[in-house]
């Protein structure tokens, strides 16, 4: 369920390394918790973010949820499709529901994140 080549945060973001860029989104666990996503606030391209800085917001009918950057770097692309179709985050949170692409400043930051199996154990712990 959780792709093995992704890295995961305790705040339920994922990052996938693709051609030197970090593709960032929120996990299936997060989208289930949120419910229907109706609005996404995306950052501007070229903005810099530090690890764990708020880079945007995902809003469901009932909740407003900050997206914390899982890595430091500059935003090079945002998923414009989310403006008209925020529900992509519910439908395909690990694929079409990607949120931003960041130019990775320091690959060693990925080592602080969880692997898929670590993340799966982590959320099992939450669900108890």
């Amino acid at each position, binding site marked *: 369920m959780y792709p093995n080549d992704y890295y995961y945060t305790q705040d339920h973001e994922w990052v996938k390394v693709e051609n030197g860029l970090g593709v960032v989104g929120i996990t299936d666990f997060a989208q289930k918790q949120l*419910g*229907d996503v109706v609005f996404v606030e995306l950052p501007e391209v070229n903005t810099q973010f530090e690890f764990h800085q708020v880079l945007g917001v995902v809003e469901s009918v009932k909740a407003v949820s900050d997206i914390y950057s899982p890595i430091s770097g500059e935003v090079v692309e945002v998923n414009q499709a989310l403006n008209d179709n925020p529900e992509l985050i519910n439908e395909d949170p690990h694929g079409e529901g990607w949120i931003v692409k960041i130019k990775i400043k320091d690959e060693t930051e990925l080592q602080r994140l969880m692997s898929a199996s670590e993340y799966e154990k982590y959320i099992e712990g939450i669900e108890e």
Partner: protein
Amino acid sequence: MKKTRIFSIHQKLKAKIIEFAGWEMPVEYSSIVDEHLAVRTKAGLFDVSHMGEIMVTGEDALNFVQYLTPNNVAKLFPGKAHYSALTTPQGTFIDDLLVYCLAENQYLLVVNAANTEKDYQWIVSHQGSYKVQVENQSDQVTQLALQGPRAQEILQPLVPVDLGEMKSFRFTWTEIEGEKVLVSRTGYTGEDGFEIYTYSANPVPIWETIMVQGKELGLVPVGLGARDTLRLEACLMLYGNDIDETTTVLEAGLSWIVKFKKGDFLGREALLRQKEEGLKRKIVGFELLERGIPRPHYPVYISNEEVGQVTSGTFSPFFKKSIGLTYLPLDYTEEGTIFEIGIRGKRVKAQVVPTPFYKREK
């Protein structure tokens, strides 16, 4: 934390459960948006047993309820209900509620879950020398709401009365699956529908029978999440958000439940004075003109000055745009007025629009 007598069903259906007013309640079963749209296009079944029921009985029941509320209870008769409020001497809200006339000397007040205890104490403390018995029956009553254009089609085969004859705000005692129930043509969604009350110790079969009957017509269970988006589209007030002890009945746009000529009631003088002097502020409905979602307590600005806060706000599943309610100074309450809402530090433009946002086709 309290559980309704239908809780096992919500568990079985794996509903997302939240704490609301001391009750464990289902907020959604599948998706708030899907449940909301089902109610607008087919039908939805809600467990709203967390609501409060306070019975007022006795030879002074009519006069007592007349005194406590601004609407005219003398216009009710057995089988008729109306929307009203428990008002303070300042004409503000202790609660909003429905008053059901069960008999010449018996009135059932159906109140908000969050206010049940407060309302009961308020009523009892104002009893004075009125010859009445006041009973908080909330823990005995299960209340379901069946709402949507197909509600009558679904419920009719299950009851021995002709629902086609039941007008809005009328009710009757009848039975479902051998259990005695009160069925009223009332609701909190802006759709046609019924609220169903029972004192049965085991009301689960009533829920199940309705769900089975409605399955082919697209009936789905609906939680509190969609209940809120539905009522907001229909511009129905939510206590604690849009109305409370600081807002008068007139400011809340509910002058139609204030019957000054009926005689004295708590708040009559204050409301009459406010009517004569003119309101200083009034609730309005608005739409956002730019991207964003307005939420309760977000600041509201006119010409850069903070004038209040959003009282209710959401992304409307039916209209697919952001809507909300807020109080504005009277000069700014005209349709078309543009103002701003602060969303995470940014000013987002909004416009006053006619209400209700949603009105069903008759």
